[in-house]
């Protein structure tokens, strides 16, 4: 098998520092947003006692789910022994760590008492899915960190497969945990199903790969390195399978609910009467997130790199829409305490809850995205994560 040369990006050009500075600016905005929320309380957000998890959770859960998915490329290389993916693995690992960091920061900085993070680290209730997630996230950093080390340090290279396998299993459990944050809730009609765990796993595959592809293409294009079509087409094919699987899970989830009369109300809300949520579901989640990317990738357009990038962007946008519908849509629909009766109260019982995200929420979420990209940008400058070339000849040699 031919060997691949990994090389740091030089990172001294004006373009690099502009990118670095731009991302840094968004990190700064995120920090200011957190400071505002922390100082004044959640009163400055669009969240209230009806919509208790808002836009920051949409960003945070999306990033965490995408993080575990971004690791997939590395897993395919080491767990499933596909040599073509080996040179792609280090970026996959660092990107997953960076996305996880961004997601977790948004999650913990949105706490009502973010200053009490130490309490969450020292007081545990093992019946809580949140507690399990604390361990799953920490373990993820540890395992993926070790995995990355085995990829970068020749002296421990022989442990790479073992570390990769452990990280792969861990990430499956982790996304199960993320899905179960919602799956283990009995109060809301849209949750409370084991479907959410596998659905979140397959969504992570799609979102993570879409982000990975965009970062990979950008890194190669902006550094003038060669990225051959072989790699792009292979990953594109994989993205098609993942996006189709996401669509399948969404259809099965809603069809199952439609069969149960008790879910008719909430399903009608999401699918037909929910205003912004219905629009986000059909236009965002289904058309932009699934159908359009599939059409692009499966048609002649999918042979052009620009269109593959468009498809990836659409998958990411659709993923954000999906998180918005899943997290906020489910809360917007009123709790049905007295089935069949009309409920009215000063606490907004029986009415659909409105939600308008505020600027601090938006910038806190964007800050998480910026941190993830900033870490990745910095990591490829200081570590040998990217192959010097991924042209078709080099890649072809790997497989023979």
């Amino acid at each position, binding site marked *: 098998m031919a060997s691949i040369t990994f090389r740091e990006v030089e990172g001294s050009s004006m373009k690099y520092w502009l990118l670095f500075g731009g991302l840094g600016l968004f990190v700064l905005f995120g920090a200011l947003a957190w400071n505002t929320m922390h100082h*004044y*309380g*959640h*009163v400055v957000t669009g*969240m*209230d*006692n*009806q919509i*208790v*998890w808002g836009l920051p959770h949409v960003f945070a859960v999306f990033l965490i789910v995408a993080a575990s998915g971004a690791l997939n490329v590395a897993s395919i290389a080491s767990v499933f022994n596909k040599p073509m993916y080996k040179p792609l693995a280090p970026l996959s690992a660092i990107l997953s760590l960076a996305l996880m960091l961004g997601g977790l920061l948004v999650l913990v900085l949105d*706490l*009502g*008492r*973010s200053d*009490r*993070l130490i*309490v*969450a680290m020292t*007081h*545990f*209730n093992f*019946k*809580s*899915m*949140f*507690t399990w997630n*604390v361990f799953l996230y920490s373990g993820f950093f540890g395992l993926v960190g070790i995995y990355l080390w085995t990829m970068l340090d020749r002296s421990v290279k022989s442990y790479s497969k073992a570390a990769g396998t452990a990280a792969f299993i861990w990430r499956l459990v982790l996304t199960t945990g993320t899905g179960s*944050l919602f799956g*283990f*809730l*009995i*109060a*809301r009609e849209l949750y409370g199903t084991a479907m959410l765990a596998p659905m979140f796993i397959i969504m992570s595959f799609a979102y993570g790969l879409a982000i990975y592809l965009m970062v990979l293409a950008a890194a190669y294009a902006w550094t003038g390195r060669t990225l051959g079509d072989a790699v792009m087409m292979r990953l594109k094919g994989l993205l098609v399978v993942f996006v189709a699987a996401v669509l399948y899970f969404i259809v099965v989830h809603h069809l199952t609910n439609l069969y149960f009369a008790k879910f008719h109300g909430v399903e009608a809300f999401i699918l037909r009467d929910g205003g912004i949520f219905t629009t986000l579901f059909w236009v965002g989640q289904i058309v932009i997130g699934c159908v359009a990317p599939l059409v692009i990738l499966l048609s002649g357009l999918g042979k052009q790199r620009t269109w593959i990038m468009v498809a990836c962007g659409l998958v990411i946008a659709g993923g954000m829409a999906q998180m918005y519908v899943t997290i906020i849509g489910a*809360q917007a629909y009123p*709790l049905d*305490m*007295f089935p*069949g*009766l*009309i*409920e*009215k*109260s*000063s*606490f*907004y*019982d029986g009415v659909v809850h409105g939600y308008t995200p505020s600027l601090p929420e938006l910038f806190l979420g964007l800050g998480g995205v910026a941190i993830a990209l900033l870490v990745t940008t910095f990591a490829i400058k200081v570590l040998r994560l990217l192959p010097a070339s991924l042209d078709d000849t080099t890649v072809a040699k790997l497989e023979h």
Partner: protein
Amino acid sequence: MSKLKPMSDQVPASPERRRFVGAATATAAGLTIAPGVMLYQVAHGRPEEQAASSAVRWGMLVDATKCATGCDDCVTACSTENGWTPVAESKHPKQAPQWIRKLELQDPLTQMETNLPMMCQHCAEPPCVDVCPTGASFKRADGIVLVNRHTCIGCRYCMMACPYKARSLVHEDLDDTQKPDVPRGIGCVESCTLCVQKIDRGDGNTACAEACTAAGHNALLFGDMNDPESEISKRLRELPTKQVRADLNLNLGVRYHGI
């Protein structure tokens, strides 16, 4: 009762014995104990160092047939007792905490209207306690579900989990209406405590139930559901009652008649 903590060994297991101990303590303290009601109440107050006992299960009976339309005396009393700003006076009504609220129900077919107060149902199997990552959400031995203000991190997972929308997050700094025995704070989640400060003082009743009785409606009855001789137990034996979302099988401390 084999599950009781060692502390409970010192707690009288039977109501009769409890009354006796309560009476003896009170007498020793030099209090004059005349009416039986007083005896009952003192017996239920407990010293600070003594843990709550699972021999007691505090609960409430809501008689929706007696709950008056337009009356919100229970809500006002709760707000006064516990120091939370009434929603009408709040600058941010959607974000204002509401420990208890009046719910108006109507059957769209028959037009039948029902009024009732809705608050924390003090489940025996509380979903909020299950999901709380730090254990800040907890159930006391005597069935009262509370939030530990020192370990609540404001994650709002309990609010996502509660089927009764009973919990509120404190969204902004609190003004000076706070009560010394009802700790509250920005960024933490809170809900009905069954007036735990009054129960532990030995008042034997909650502010909402007192207000309802004072208004002459008698729609709220508070008491020990484990004591077969308590007023609430007697009434629960006679009246057909329901638990809200009984399908969830959470074994609620608040029972409703007339829904």
